[in-house]
């Protein structure tokens, strides 16, 4: 390149292309995103946060909670699960014999081994997950084959992955989960656990307050710093305030004093409890658990 114009041109084309691709296009594609509907339900998603929870997001932002916590769950894939919920007048042995009679079908070949092993280890208790497969069509076929009066089975879609196995959520996080977040706090490091579903996992506001005041009081090996500055330690008045934290001896304040959450602490907890990304969506389907296996 012999002159300055060429450099300007190269830089403008290079950066302009990425600006169009990674700034303009996502804004056009997602900037007008609207409410979506929950899968197999008339409900809309996500819910608008309450005023207190919206203020709590600002406490979350101001204290940089996202430096250690993500709000994003990942998944590896989805699987179909066949669960037997009722046998009617039949005995488990009948069900075993019937299912084994299906094995002659060529189409079921990929799953016959797994089915045989599962049936062998079954002690007859219900509900019973007798097949887990990534092939939804086969699962559908078997589900229809065993559809005899009295026998009830359920075909469930289950998302899989390490994050989900940890109980951090029933499905991966998708764009719709963050529709109302201003700012979106995805986080980039997991020095603490993921919080995408903390409102489902730990819905007890008192637990959350205790955890913020003295993390080790509820999680003994926690590395989270305490957020004592979001609480006030004050002299007990006529009687212990109803909102005073119930701390054990190790973390309790001096005798005659009580620990009460400030407005900021309550807002932060309201925000944490509002983190519930647990409904099935078209882009991230799963079957909500109604009967625990």
């Amino acid at each position, binding site marked *: *390149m012999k002159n300055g114009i060429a450099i300007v041109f190269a830089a403008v084309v290079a950066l302009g292309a990425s600006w169009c691709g990674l700034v303009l296009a996502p804004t056009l594609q997602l900037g007008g995103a609207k409410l979506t509907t929950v899968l197999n339900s008339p409900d809309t998603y996500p819910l608008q946060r309450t005023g207190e929870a919206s203020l709590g997001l600002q406490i979350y932002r*101001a204290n940089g909670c996202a430096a250690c916590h993500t709000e994003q769950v990942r998944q590896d894939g989805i699987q179909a699960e066949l669960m037997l919920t009722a046998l009617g007048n039949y005995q488990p042995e009948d069900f075993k014999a019937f299912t084994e009679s299906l094995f002659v079908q060529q189409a079921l070949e990929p799953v016959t081994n797994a089915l045989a092993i599962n049936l062998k280890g079954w002690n007859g208790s219900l509900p019973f997950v007798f097949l887990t497969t990534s092939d939804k069509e086969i699962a559908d076929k078997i589900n229809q084959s065993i559809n005899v009066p009295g026998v009830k089975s359920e075909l469930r879609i289950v998302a899989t992955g390490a994050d989900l196995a940890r109980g951090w959520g029933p499905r991966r996080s998708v764009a719709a989960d963050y529709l109302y977040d201003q700012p979106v706090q995805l986080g980039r490091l*997991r020095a603490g656990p993921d919080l995408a579903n903390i409102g489902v996992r730990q819905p007890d506001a008192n637990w959350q307050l205790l955890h913020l005041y003295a993390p080790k009081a509820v999680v003994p090996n926690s590395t989270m710093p305490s957020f004592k500055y979001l609480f006030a330690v004050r002299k007990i008045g006529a009687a212990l305030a109803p909102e005073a934290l119930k701390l054990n001896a190790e973390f309790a304040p001096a005798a005659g004093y009580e620990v009460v959450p400030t407005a900021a602490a309550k807002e932060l907890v309201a925000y944490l409890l509002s983190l519930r990304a647990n409904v099935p969506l078209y882009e991230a389907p799963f079957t909500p658990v109604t009967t625990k296996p």
Partner: protein
Amino acid sequence: MNPNENTFVACGSSKIDASLRVPLLALFGGAAVWLIVGLVLGLIAGIKFHAPEFLSTIPMLTYGRVAPAANDAVLYGFCIPAGLGVMLWVLARLSQMPLVLPMVPVVAANLWNIGVLIGTGGILIGESTGHPWLEYPRAAAVILFAAFLLIAVSAAGTFGWRRERALYPSHWFLFAALLWFPWIYSTASLLLNTVWLPRGVVQPVIGWWFANNLVFVWLALVGIGTAFYFLPKISGKPLAGSGYALFAFLTLVFFGAWCGIPASAPVPAWLPTASAFAALLTIIPILAIAIITIKTVFGSGVSCQGGPFCFIKFGVVCFVLSGLMYVASACPQSSRVLEFTWFGFAQTQLQLLGFFALIIFGAAYEILPKIMGGALPFPKLAKLHFFLTAGGVLLFVIPLAIAGVEQGKALMNPAIAFADANGVTLKFLRISTTGQLLILLGALLFALNIFVMTMKWQLALVKSLIAAVKAPLPEATAQRDQEVKV
């Protein structure tokens, strides 16, 4: 090497250097202070992982505020102004032209420092925007943007009126960087740092685009542009293949600008796919830069002995490593393990403190004696600075990268409880804090050299001023001489 630079020496390297003295002292002085501030804040953040209750009662020093304040103080406080200082000098030297409007960068340097002060203070009092690498509140963003434009005016003027018309590879890198920052910073600030934020995940997408273009591309442009000037100068050999350099530049800006969207991001799949593909292609400029550097440096017979040459060579090695780590964490397969772990933190710290800071230190030690017209006050401490920083960077980054891999593997296995997966990182974090301490000691030596040099120069200025006041006026002397004759 710019072939005409030697023939033009008579035109006055000294004049060019003199025009840069005050602007560079302002830029380097502020940068040295912010580097120390950033490293101290980083050290506080690091200690919190060994003792979570350390300073936890002070809201301003909670981990979530100190950690981003530390990162930003190093990037905005040190890397950018120091990089701009080096850029001004290199552009002026290559242009064979004294700096145009030399007082403008001085004003801009002070403005920039005010911006960083407001920004850092803003984060610490809880006014962060919450977007990584763009945490500074609105007031700081406006000041930083204005200050950058002022410096860019001076740099572009020097470039536009250059006496030496031929362009050298460093020109491409540095001039592109001059355009890059205002564009990305204005886009990101206007979209993410105003009252009307875009909806949902558009925010993190813009944030990733900005962070990638600043921390990866901008630093690479300035750092490598600087290295491509000094490596041939010091080794006394021309830069190997300027065709390669052009290739490296074009591939870096075209592919590098598209990186940054994590593979698992909760956005439409085409975005992370485009980014992963771009990251894979970014291996090309990284390897090209490595090859050019090796060809230029090897066989020069110049030993570095802890001098600027050492700093710059080590910086380029760190660039290649951090670039490869960046590609590894963008690749969908490996990002499954590395995402959300300390690995990403290790990569950015290697980029900031290993690659960029080392090249800037080397350049500053080369430039300072020239603009001040005298040797460094403590040349031995400058050498010690190299060994402290190089050792510190290795001790800081390698354990963090290993911790990231171990943590990622543990998190992939749901049978390992989260607290245990987190626990495997703690011993590595302990070693990395030692590294931080060494880097901080090195930075103190850097600041010492700069400030003693500045003070000596100011003292000399004052002395010459006093001498000028005390000296008899020239006319008076002439008159007296005449009287004597008569």
